């Protein structure tokens, strides 16, 4: 089979439509994961024991099952109990929940890495709990978390093709549909790969930049 540039230009608009959805799903999923992760982390670290345990169980459960199964569950099983979600929303919730558990772990590790002496110095200088979090703990805990969080963002991005399984018209789904209707797979699938590669490369450069930047802040 020959590479057909004409076909490439013909399917490009459709694929770009899909790419837009892929990026949108990644961005919303990441935002949701960041928030859900924070909730998980706070519950695990500060809630009363039973609630903290329950949270740990939920986190382990979500982490121990495949994202694809969770997506099916949210999109195809929840309607049985009356919860009907649009495909994209279901996908974003799936991504957010799944990666929220990873974010929670990053948050927890980052916060626990701040030495106990910092909490004590804050107390000895009479800062309130809130002031301690805002002015002492988070400024030290957050920068080292950024590379790890960005890594998960890239991983999440590369897992968005799973959303095609629940009818989200993201990049992979669009590519499949143009391939299926034209019986040409080489161009759409190559382009999907190239798009993902380009996005990943950009992200990696951005990630290096973040790592550099936050390393410098520490040294200043």
């Amino acid at each position, binding site marked *: 089979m020959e590479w057909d540039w004409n076909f490439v230009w013909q399917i490009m608009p459709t694929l770009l439509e899909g790419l837009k959805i892929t990026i949108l799903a990644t961005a919303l999923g990441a935002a949701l994961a960041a928030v859900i992760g924070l909730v998980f982390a706070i519950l695990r670290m500060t809630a009363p024991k039973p609630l903290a345990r329950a949270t740990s169980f939920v986190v382990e459960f979500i982490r121990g099952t495949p994202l694809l199964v969770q997506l099916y569950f949210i999109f195809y099983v929840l309607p049985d109990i009356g919860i009907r979600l649009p495909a994209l929303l279901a996908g974003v919730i799936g991504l957010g929940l799944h990666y929220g558990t990873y974010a929670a772990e990053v948050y927890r590790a980052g916060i626990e890495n701040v030495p106990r002496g910092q909490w004590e110095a804050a107390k000895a*200088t009479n800062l309130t709990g809130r002031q301690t979090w805002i002015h002492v703990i988070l*400024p*030290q805990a957050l920068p080292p978390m950024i590379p790890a969080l960005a890594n998960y963002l890239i991983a999440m991005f590369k897992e968005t093709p799973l959303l095609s399984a629940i009818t989200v018209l993201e990049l992979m789904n669009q590519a499949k549909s143009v391939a299926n209707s034209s019986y040409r797979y080489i161009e759409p699938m190559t382009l999907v790969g190239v798009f993902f590669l380009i996005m990943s490369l950009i992200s990696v450069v951005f990630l290096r930049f973040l790592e550099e930047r936050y390393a410098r802040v520490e040294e200043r």
Partner: protein
Amino acid sequence: MAAPIIRIDSITKRYGPLTVLDGLSMEVLPGEKLALIGPSGSGKTTILRILMTLETISGGHIEVDGEQLYHMPRNGGLVPADERYLHRMREKIGMVFQHFNLFPHKCVLDNVTLAPMLTKGVAKAEAEKRAMELLDMVGMADKAKSMPAQLSGGQKQRVAIARALALSPKIMLFDEVTSALDPELVEEVLNVMRKLAAETDMTMLLVTHEMGFAHDFADRVLFFDRGKIVEEGKPDDIFRHPRQERTQTFLRKILAAGHRL
């Protein structure tokens, strides 16, 4: 005689099965410079940490500056203090740690101004002016814009002292503030402490293994062993003529280990 500024009344501290302090009582007068000495594990740090409310107590009462520290009055009785009450009590007390615990993400000046601005609402300009005076006092004014990571241990500790002083506490607690330092850096910190003792009427509690310094610095020395005060008295009496055998053994050991008197 003035009323004690600290009144510790038979406090008990347990960590699980381990009883660290068992019915300890002691009093400190306003302006007094007190040195706490004793073998490792005798509970010296624990007492300072309890006074800074970094620990909880398992029993007993502590009064600081006329008010209960771990209990607050409620309906004519006393109930365990809540966070708001503790916050108000902490204004009276400052602490300098063995390992400095400076805020590494803030420059020297910001380390000193942070708490006065946040907890007392002092305006930035005023906080910085006062901070510069204190940094000057500890000989660190020229490093005001440096980050803690760029300082030596002795410099960090002098900044930590300025940070604690910035809140003008009535009571300052010093927990082995020179023992994490290289030997050649000890003296610069001790000099600051001497100056502080001479120039202020703050009440100071000092835990130290520097017997020579304790001798010069303190009005009164307490020798601790296993969570109890074994002997107390004027520095000359404790160091030159200890009466208790445990004190004698301790001093002999620590002097043999190369500490000066």
